[in-house]
């Protein structure tokens, strides 16, 4: 048995999906793309492979202990994620302290170290949510916590806030860009130690881990896709366009899908499929990123809101304000103009969401319309207001249609890529280059 891996290097997030030989999903990995596609690809892939390893472990265990398996593997997975975060925390903490030191302030360096020690002390509480909510990343969680703690420490006079933040900003970029996850074998010890388990249960898991067949974890083939796909160290045959991958991925999730709408960070795609998931036609937005995920990002910034707050706020609107331009350049101006006229923020937001969907509807129409089931994918599919408007507009223009939105829709492209890896011709295992390992402190307990 071998695994098949699809990697989707998006402009904002990078995703990986691991399939087994029966095309079942074994593992998923997701990371922010940062400015370094290569590292992002490695991180996503390693996470997905770790995920697959834990899934295989679960399968083996289920044969022996039955329904108890789920609880044990869930706990191991939680501990695994936390351990991985702690590894990163170490690297980050060391780098921040080092930067503070270089900045000529040993006091700050010392204070920083104790801040990181404090975070590590609460690691389970701080990082466990990441095992559940895959839309948040290590960076988000640790940054929020660090800035809060640093503010508080600065008020106590324990450190200079500015120096600490400077040291942190430099460190997080560097750490993210040289990040190389530890091999799974090096993490299992810490993860098992961290897991809240009975000694008997721990032994069961340990045995199962040792019993994993490494051959079953060999990757048979990779296929890459996404905006950054050209940067993957794969031969040409192992690169597929996002269009084909989203099409095939959506078809795998919902076999009755004939139309796919994907609204990503930089572009919007409308894809028409045949009954086998092959692409019949597609259209992408024109050159400007108006009406894409990035537009919502600008709006959120302009309104000083979190991206995830936009949808719920818009849904509480009483009416949609008419927005004439989805141009990101004018978005801010128009927004301030409307606010100054006393328009409610919620109503403006609903108008903005509607404007985005109107553009998407045009693309759908360009590609051939919505004749049967529509599957909506991409980061923007998480936005409830967008979904709400999409349902209304599709119904208005095409009549009642089934609209599928999968909880894991963000993985659609990577899933399609993995399916191509499984089905595609071309033999041979490409050697994906690994970035050089970061000089980070060894993980605790190894």
């Amino acid at each position, binding site marked *: 048995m071998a695994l098949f891996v699809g990697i989707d290097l998006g402009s904002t997030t990078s995703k990986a999906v691991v399939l087994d030989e029966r095309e079942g999903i074994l593992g998923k990995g997701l990371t922010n793309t940062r400015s370094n596609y290569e590292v992002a690809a490695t991180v996503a892939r390693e996470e997905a492979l770790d995920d697959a390893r834990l899934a295989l472990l679960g399968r083996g265990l289920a044969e022996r202990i039955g329904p108890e398996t789920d609880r044990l593997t869930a706990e191991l997975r939680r501990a695994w994620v936390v351990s991985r975060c702690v590894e990163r925390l170490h690297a980050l903490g060391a780098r921040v302290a080092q930067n503070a030191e270089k900045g000529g302030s040993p006091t700050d360096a010392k204070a920083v170290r104790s801040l990181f020690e404090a975070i590590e002390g609460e690691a389970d509480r701080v990082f466990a949510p990441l095992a559940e909510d895959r839309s948040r990343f290590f960076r988000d969680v640790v940054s929020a916590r660090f800035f809060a703690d640093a503010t508080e420490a600065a008020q106590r006079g324990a450190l200079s806030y500015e120096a600490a933040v400077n040291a942190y900003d430099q460190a997080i970029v560097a750490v993210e860009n040289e990040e190389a996850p530890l091999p799974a074998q090096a993490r299992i010890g810490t993860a098992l130690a961290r897991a809240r388990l009975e000694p008997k249960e721990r032994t069961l898991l340990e045995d199962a881990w040792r019993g994993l067949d490494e051959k079953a974890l060999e990757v048979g083939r990779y296929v890459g896709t996404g*905006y950054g796909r*050209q940067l993957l160290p794969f031969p040409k045959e192992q690169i*597929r*366009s*996002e*269009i*084909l991958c989203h099409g095939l991925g959506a078809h795998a999730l919902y076999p009755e899908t004939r139309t796919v709408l994907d609204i990503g960070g930089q572009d919007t795609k409308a894809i028409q499929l045949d009954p*086998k998931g*092959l*692409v*019949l*036609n*597609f*259209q*992408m937005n*024109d*050159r400007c990123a108006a009406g894409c995920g990035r537009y919502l990002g600008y709006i959120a910034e302009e309104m000083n809101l979190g991206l995830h707050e936009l949808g719920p706020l818009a849904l509480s609107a009483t009416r949609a304000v008419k927005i004439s331009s989805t141009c990101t350049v004018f978005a801010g101006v128009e927004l301030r103009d409307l606010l100054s006229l006393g328009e409610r923020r919620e109503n403006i937001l609903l108008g903005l969401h509607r404007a985005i969907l109107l553009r998407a509807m045009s693309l759908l129409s*360009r590609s*051939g319309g919505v004749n049967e089931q529509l599957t909506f994918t991409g980061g923007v599919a998480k936005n409830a207001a967008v979904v709400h408007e999409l349902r209304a507009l599709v119904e208005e223009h095409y009549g009642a249609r089934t609209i599928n939105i999968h909880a894991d829709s963000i993985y659609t492209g990577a899933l399609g890529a993995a399916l191509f890896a499984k089905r595609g011709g071309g033999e041979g295992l490409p050697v994906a280059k690994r970035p050089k390992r970061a000089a980070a402190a060894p993980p605790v307990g190894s």
Partner: protein
Amino acid sequence: MKLPITEATANAAPPPAPLARAASQVVQRDASPTVQKDASMDRQKAMLAGYFSELAHARETGRKVVYTFVPGNLTELIRAAGALGVYPEVNALQSAMRQRSDGFVREAERLGHNEDVCSYVKCDVGMLASGNIGPTGEKLPPPDLLLLSYTGCFTFLKWFELLQKEYGCEIAMLHVPYQADGTVTEDMRRYVAKQLATEVIPKLEKVTGRKVDLDELAELLRRSGRAEDDLVWVLDSAKSRPSPIDAYFGGVYYVGPIFTAFRGTEDCEGYYHDLRGEVAARLARREGPVMPNGVLAEERFRIVVEGPPNWTHFRDFWRIFYDEGAVVVASSYTKVGGLYDQGFRHGQDRDPLLSLADYCLGCYTNHSLTARVELLSSYVRDFGADGFVINSLKSCNSFSVGQLVMMREVEKRTGVPGGFIETDLVDPRYYSQANIKNRIESYLQMIAQRKASA
């Protein structure tokens, strides 16, 4: 029409020695970093250099200079009046290929021209404001006459109004009615011919001081017709597999002389005779087209393209197709200066003025959208294309407005899905290599998937 492959060996003249040498050089792909060229390209380059030099010395030699546009150009008439033609679109695209259009466009915008309007106009206005140094580095002479043969593009009208204000020279306007219903009526022909007789020729004669001899004009037209026969043969060769030519990126070179100042000259006739020989030789060797990076090794996709190319990144754009093994087998852009492949020839009508009227009325952008859809659909079918790509230009409403509707129609009629990309003529700010590459690759992968599953 017969497939050229059956005629190739029979009719083609053996390639002259320099051509044979050129061909053997280009087979070694990527052997050197220098750009690969057909011998005909060198010949054309020499023709152009000679012409621009002639223009630069027009004042000394006393030749009068007539500015005019490519679609519906009256080159034989300009020659018959003893004048030299200057083609502002060609200057603009040449400036773009030499990476100079960016500065000219910005200069025009600095002078108040809007970001929304045609970049050909702005490039020309900017070039004029920067000293009117032409693409070869020699100063272009000012026009003695602006011959506004306004065919298939309203912006031409505004363009020459602007130039006329700058130069204060004589201007002659020729209104060519649009083929909205896909037909040319006798009224339309007579309207154009009468304007030639009462407006264009008198002004030409006034400016040059020389009487236009209609018999001489007729002779020039017949010579154009002979070159056009050879051009059509070359364009038709793309029906063979593999195609020996690229009918878009390569095609813009092939139509160069016949779309501009050389039509009706012996040089032009000779060029097309040689070109035909060169292509026939490639056809006999079953060789693919010569591209900047060498002879295309494997023809993976046969594509029809609608719309002019982007000139600022011409080679990058071409490279995207080359890297995927995509050959353009037919294009509409190579018909903006005449739809010769649909049967028209200069000199066909014995009345030279009616012949010129037919020419003007028949240029590609003077055709209705329905006629364009039919033409593109016939290209997809007749050239055995796997796909068609529309390169939609921000600058050119004449081409661009309606292309999305045309795309759906061609899809309906041929069953082949279309690809859509957006660039511009000569404003580099509207060309994004990553974006275009992504789309073209996605499109070709879709086509490959369809071919594999068929």
